[in-house]
Each structure stands twice: as C-alpha cells, then as structure tokens.
C-alpha cells in the first residue's frame, strides 16, 4: 500500500512537472491559470494542445510498457523479457510505418494503431512459440534479436522507399521513440487500444501468482493456462502496439521498471503488475522531462535516454542469469 501511494505521488508530481517544463517559459501560476481558465490566448493554446497531450501520452505509454514488461516477465518467469528487447515494439513500429507509407493510415482513423497492433501480435506469437512456456533465456534473447533486427531492417526499407524526403530521417524516431509535438489526436487514437490492453493484462495477476508454483500447480489451482496465454498476447499487443503507433519504439521501460520494483512488492508477479504500470508512467514522464532539459532545441529521442539507463541494467541481469543461459 505504501508503494502504491509513493508511486502515485511520483506520477502526479512528474505529470505536473511535465506540464510546466517547455521552451516557452512561463510561471507555474500562469500555466495553471491558462490550463484551467478560459480559452483564447496563446498560453492556453500551448498548455492545452501541446503540453497536456504530451504529459498524458507519457503516462499512457509508460503504463503500457511497464505493465507489458511485468506481465511478460511473470508469464515467462524470466527477468529479461521486455517488449522492446524481444522485438514486439520493433514489429509494432514496422506495422505502423507500413500503414503510414502505403496510405492505409490515412484511409480510416484506426488503421494506424490496428496495423501496429498486428505487427506486435505477430512478434508476441513468434516469441511465445519459440521460447515455449518456460521461456528459456537463450531462446528468448536470440529470438528477440532476430525479430528486432528483421523488423528494424524492414522499417528502414519501407522508409527508404517512401517518396517523402523526410521519411528516411525518421528511422530514428521509429527505433528510439519520442513524445515531441504529439497532440490529442494521438491520445484518442491510442487510448481505446491501450485501455483494452490494460484491462486484459491487469486481470492476469492471480494467474501469474499461481504460475510461480509451476504449470501443474497453477492448473490445479484452477488457472486455465491457454486462456492466460491468449490474454497476455492480446494485452501486450494492444498496449505496446498502440504506444508504438503514436510514440515510436521506446525500449527498456518494461525491463528497468519491474526490476526496480520487484523487491518492494515481495516478488509477487500479480502485485508487480500495477506497481510496474505506475512505475512505467513515472519513468517515461521523467525521461521525457529529461530530454527537454538536456537538449531543449533538439529532438532528442526518448529511447536514447532509456537505453543509457536500461542497457547497463540489462547487461547486469544477463551476468546474473548467465548460469541458466
């Protein structure tokens, strides 16, 4: 309970900070008045149409990635499982890029998140089929490398083939992710899919707790493993797919957050789910604030920061689990 309060407070504080930090510097009082007050002037426009959707998306993307990471790790009973590292985000980005470059995304509103979801779905299926129910580290990581590399290469190809001269330079966005200059259009586009994903993943708690005792014990406790697996696949695909469609592939959130919070929730995968959702939101908000403070004039990608924090941790985890490898 204390963890819940602390994490919630952290998210609220970072959400507020995200609203107050930006290139056009105005004071907290003025910002709040513009946000809540009457419509019309320029400050109101900046607060409501630029900073608010950016902060909301930060929370949404963070919840999606944190929750997905915790759920995948709980199901595979492997701390190395993470949507970015096993290629789910990369495949979602590929789906989104194909939808954008073929013009399907322009034909109807939900085409973009649907295409990203499809990409993510294919990757999760592949990973679970290859890694098996126990999720051996070696197969998991090798399959992840292969899927990420293929998705990344095809994303680059699709962007290179685009008639648009700006597309090629956006390879970095799709591989690293950013929340810059997003609007409420993107919030509304992603929210329904994410919400479905969150509900599916949040309901896995009891099953994941039971699974720590082993498959047989879990089935004896009345957990239907095939159903659990289906909910996991759909939940991860929906939330990661929608997050990637609007913010690009942001890696390492789902790795770092559950790892940091596991000791605080008594290593129970079920409790780790909501903790990681809140922790993910805090982490993405913090990273998004940092990219604005470090290089305010450049479009520094979120994934750069996440990798600087996450990659050393990943190496540390590999070092710790290398005996299983």
């Amino acid at each position, binding site marked *: 309970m204390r963890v819940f309060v602390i994490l919630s407070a952290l998210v609220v504080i970072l959400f507020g900070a995200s609203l107050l930090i930006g290139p056009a510097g105005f004071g907290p009082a003025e910002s709040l008045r513009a946000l809540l007050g009457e419509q019309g002037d320029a400050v109101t*426009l900046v607060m409501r149409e*630029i900073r608010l959707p950016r902060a909301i998306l930060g929370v949404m993307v963070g919840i999606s990635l944190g929750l997905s990471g915790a759920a995948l790790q709980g199901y595979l009973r492997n701390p190395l499982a993470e949507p970015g590292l096993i290629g789910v985000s990369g495949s979602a980005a590929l789906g989104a890029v194909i939808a954008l470059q073929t013009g399907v995304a322009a034909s109807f509103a939900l085409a973009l998140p649907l295409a990203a979801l499809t990409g993510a779905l294919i990757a999760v299926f592949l990973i679970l089929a290859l890694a098996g129910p126990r999720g051996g580290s070696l197969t998991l990581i090798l399959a992840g490398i292969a899927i990420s590399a293929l998705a990344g290469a095809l994303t680059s190809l699709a962007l290179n083939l685009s008639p648009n001269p*700006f597309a090629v330079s956006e390879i970095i966005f799709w591989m690293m992710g950013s929340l810059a200059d997003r609007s409420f259009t993107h919030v509304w586009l992603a929210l329904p899919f994410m919400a479905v994903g969150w509900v599916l993943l949040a309901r896995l708690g009891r099953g994941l707790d039971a699974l720590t005792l082993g498959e047989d014990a879990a089935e004896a406790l009345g957990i239907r493993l095939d159903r659990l697996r289906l909910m996991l696949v759909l939940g991860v695909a929906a939330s990661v797919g929608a997050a990637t469609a609007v913010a690009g592939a942001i890696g390492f959130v789902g790795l770092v957050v559950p790892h940091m919070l596991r000791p605080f929730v008594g290593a129970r995968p079920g409790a780790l789910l909501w903790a990681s959702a809140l922790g993910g939101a805090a982490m993405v908000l913090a990273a998004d604030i940092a990219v604005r403070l470090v290089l305010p004039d450049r479009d520094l990608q979120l994934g750069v920061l996440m990798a600087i924090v996450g990659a050393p941790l990943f190496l540390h985890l590999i070092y710790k689990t290398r005996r299983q490898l």
Partner: protein
Amino acid sequence: MVVFAVAGLLLAAATGLASAQADEPAAVPPQRVVSMNLCTDQLAMMLAARGQLISVSDLAADPDTSPMHEQGRNYPANHGGAEEIYLLRPDLVVAGTYSDPTVVAMLRRLGIRVAQLDIVRTLDEVPERLATMGALLGRQDAAAAQIADFDAALAALSAPPDGPRAAFYFPNGYTLGTGTLSHDILTTAGYRHIADELGRSASGRLALELLIIADPEFVITSSPYPGASRSEALLEHPAFAAVVGARGAFISSNDWICGTPLVLNALRDLVEARE
C-alpha cells in the same frame, strides 16, 4: 585602428579584383556547358545561347522544386556524378558553392573548368549572379537586359514595412532566420518577420510552443510531399491550425528557392496576399 581598416579595405578591393578577373569573359565563349545545381540550372537556361547548355541537373525537371521544370525537360539531365559529367565532355561546368566537393575536385583534376556560384542571401545579389553567369557564358548583353528588367520590377514591388507579422514554419518546425533570401523577399513585400523580434539570424528548429507565443498573423509553409512523414505531420497539429487560423497558411512555391529573377513571382504572390 584606422590603419587596419584601410588595410582591410585594400585587401577587400584586391580580392574583389581577383574574383572579377576570374569572371572575365573567356576569349571564346564555352560551347558545351553543364549545370549541376538547381539554381545554376535556372540562370543558365535563362541566359545561355541556343545549343550552348548541354545538360542540367535532374532537379531542373522536377515540378516540386523547379519553377522552370517545363523548360528543364528539354535538356538531358545529369545526376551530379563526376563520371557522367566528364563523359559529356563539357568545357565549362557551373555548380553551387555547396555542390558535392569531391565531384568538383575530381572534375578540376580532370582538367575541366568548374565555376561555383554562391547562394543568394539578399535580393541585391540576384543581379550579381545574373552578371556572373552572363560573363561565364559570354552572354553579357542578355544578362544586362535581365538585370534592367529585374531592377525595375523589384522597385515597383517594394512595399513599406507596415504589413502583417509573418513567420516561416516548415516540416520539423524548421524556420528561417534573418540572414536568408526568403527573409529579404518577405520584408521587401512589407511584412514584418518574427525572426527579427526573436533575434534569430540563423535558420533552424523553432518549437511549436514558441511559434504560438510569437503569435504571427501570417504563416508561410511548404506544400506536403507525397507519402507520409512525422516531420510534416507537425503541420497538422491542432495548435498549428489554431495559429494559422481560418484563412490557412500561405504555401511557398518553388519560386522562393533560388536567387534568380523568378523570385519576383514570389514577391508578387506575397504582395497580392496582403491585399
């Protein structure tokens, strides 16, 4: 101090002389001229004698970037490679200052004369480029006629600086500074450029927030390319739409790109947009 200033002036005069000599008309005008830059393409097409210009860059025929694309289609295109340009056996290659330096160096090593024309940063420099190209091609009379027309038209289009406050805003939030030809076109048409208020002499990214706070009355942007990009999606942001307002953004045409007499069309469009 004075001594230094005088020395500087002398130096400037000396280098001015040197570059003037470089532009001296050749005894025999070149007969096989190749242009490898969008802007030198336009100047060369305007001034060259029949048959003198044998190839222009591939961009010259591209309707998105070249205002003379119909004319550009009449010339064989080159893609700026040293090998293909050498095989055209040119006696003069005209290029921009920022044309691929390895290609320029290689052509010079192969004994081909390459003249590089600098980017135009103010409207005053347009007659200078016309004169330079005229001298290079041995077409001084044609250049003089174009210069006279340009000066007369420019004087007629210049407006007092009491127009709307305007901003350039392109994909990726790229905006133009005060040291650019576009700034000079804008201010000559009587608009007040927000880059002056913000003290931005260099071009670069301007956060959408800062554009909104600057609150320009008139926004100039570019037309979207085919295909999708996140860079251009910024121009569909609801906050950008709110700044642009109901009248919509002014789309800059390809007349704005190069410092040739075609910038007069850009100027004319702006003057009309004010009315």
